[in-house]
């Protein structure tokens, strides 16, 4: 899932400075799951902004909406009938959703209400961690299902580096050494023979380094 964190309220208020009636748009997708952009957050942020603005003597009108997904054109279109009535749209969907809105709704400024994070998982309620960088060339079958690109701070293919101590990465004591995890898993799976099979240099062209990517599947169009 795509994760994110709320933007500091001051930053949002600054963005909203020129406007006095806006749409606050949530998304029922990933940001609902990671509890940063769903219906409830729309309500909380809307209340917060109204309070802040009214206290500062400049009331703001906020239309609270939640789209099914801001990354699909049909859902985005649902906003079309009324979007012209507002000066701006504050979206608390992920960066993809916000951009998609901005692309489709060209006449109204689009503002981000959250900082988009990463492709991650829920460790427990309220804690998410990164798992995938979308490099476009998956090697998990060789690494015990643990991604060296994402889980190693240096994206090494032959870790761990000398900075791995007691399973902890040198970068942060809260980060587990990805390669320690890989090796532990390979040992457990009796697949240590996979260690070292990653000699070919990784092709980053399938990752973001190849420029903005697109996926076209002819059979699905």
């Amino acid at each position, binding site marked *: 899932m795509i994760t994110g964190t709320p933007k500091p309220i001051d930053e949002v208020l600054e963005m909203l400075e020129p406007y006095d009636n806006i749409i606050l748009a949530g998304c029922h997708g990933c940001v609902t799951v990671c509890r940063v952009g769903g219906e409830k957050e729309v309500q909380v942020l809307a209340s917060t902004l109204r309070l802040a603005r009214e206290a500062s003597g400049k009331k703001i009108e906020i239309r609270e909406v939640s789209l099914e997904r801001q990354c699909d054109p049909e859902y985005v279109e649902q906003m079309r009938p009324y979007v012209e009535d507002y000066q701006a749209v504050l979206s608390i969907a992920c960066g993809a959703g916000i951009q998609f809105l901005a692309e489709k709704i060209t006449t109204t400024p689009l503002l981000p209400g959250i900082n988009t994070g990463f492709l991650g998982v829920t460790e427990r309620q309220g804690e998410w961690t990164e798992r995938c960088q979308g490099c476009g060339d998956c090697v998990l079958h060789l690494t015990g299902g643990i991604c060296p690109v994402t889980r190693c701070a240096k994206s090494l293919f032959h870790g761990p580096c*000398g900075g791995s101590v007691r399973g902890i990465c040198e970068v*942060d004591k809260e980060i587990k050494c990805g390669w320690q995890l890989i090796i532990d898993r390979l040992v457990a799976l009796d697949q240590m023979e996979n260690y070292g099979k990653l000699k070919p*240099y990784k092709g980053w062209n399938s990752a973001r380094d190849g420029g903005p990517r697109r996926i076209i599947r002819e059979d699905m169009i």
Partner: protein
Amino acid sequence: MKSGSNLEKVLAAGHLSVTAECGPPRGANPDIVRKKAAFVKGHVDACNVTDNQTAVVRMSSLAGCMLIKEEGIEPLIQMVVRDRNRIALQSDLLGAAAMGVRNLLCLSGDHQKFGDDPQAKNVFDIDSMQLIHMTKMMRDEGVFPSGDKLDGAPKFFIGCAVNPFADPFEIRVPRLKLKMEAGADFVQTQCIYNMTKFKEYMELALKEGLPEKIKILAGVTPLKSAGMAKFMRRMVAGMDIPDEVVKRIADEPKEKQAAKGIEMAIEQIQELKEIEGVSGIHVMAIEWEEKLEEIIGGAGLLPRPVVE
């Protein structure tokens, strides 16, 4: 001879090699390098020049190598994959070779978080293992990784680094073997204080027959003070300094701790010399190059042999 470097020759002749390291300055002043070179000269078979060690910005390694080479010392260029992608790495390898650098140490590099630009974007396009492999391919097959032919192959004595004390311990020897297979000719270890564990490591390496195929140069760093010992133990990931080592230096009065540190370094070298499979000593006297002579000499490794 793969590279024809002095280090390679010394080792090939069966001598116990001595290497040291020289950190380039945080500035453009070449005299600092030259001054350090003066302490090194005549005491080592080759001298490492670090590459933005601990991600702190310094003069480039290649420039440092050129400066010490001018002073008559054989340079050993360190190259990290943190800051350069494979294009830059190839280009720099060619450049270094062209300038007469014959010894290479392939490293991942410390994470930028520890340096002065933690917000920097890292590269890690390929890892150190792949750098070894790429260099070997360029040297021995004369081709770029892309397959194109080189117009003059870079002749490097290829080295790598290992930390026998990092976790998981079980992977350390297999990983060295991988590096050897990837093309490493020699390896320089992290500084060794825990002799017991290092011996254990060497036994495993011997079992794999590694010392026959790759020259193992044991790392030694003299401790300047008990404070430094404690700092390194606490702050440097993968640094294993046993309590008794810290205690030994800490038991000395402050003013005598430096001397004690040197005494202990000499003892360590003596002990390392006796370990089967150790082919050389790599003395990392960090910002303490002036003591190299005392240490290396004290260990009975001077003068350095001359091999033709």
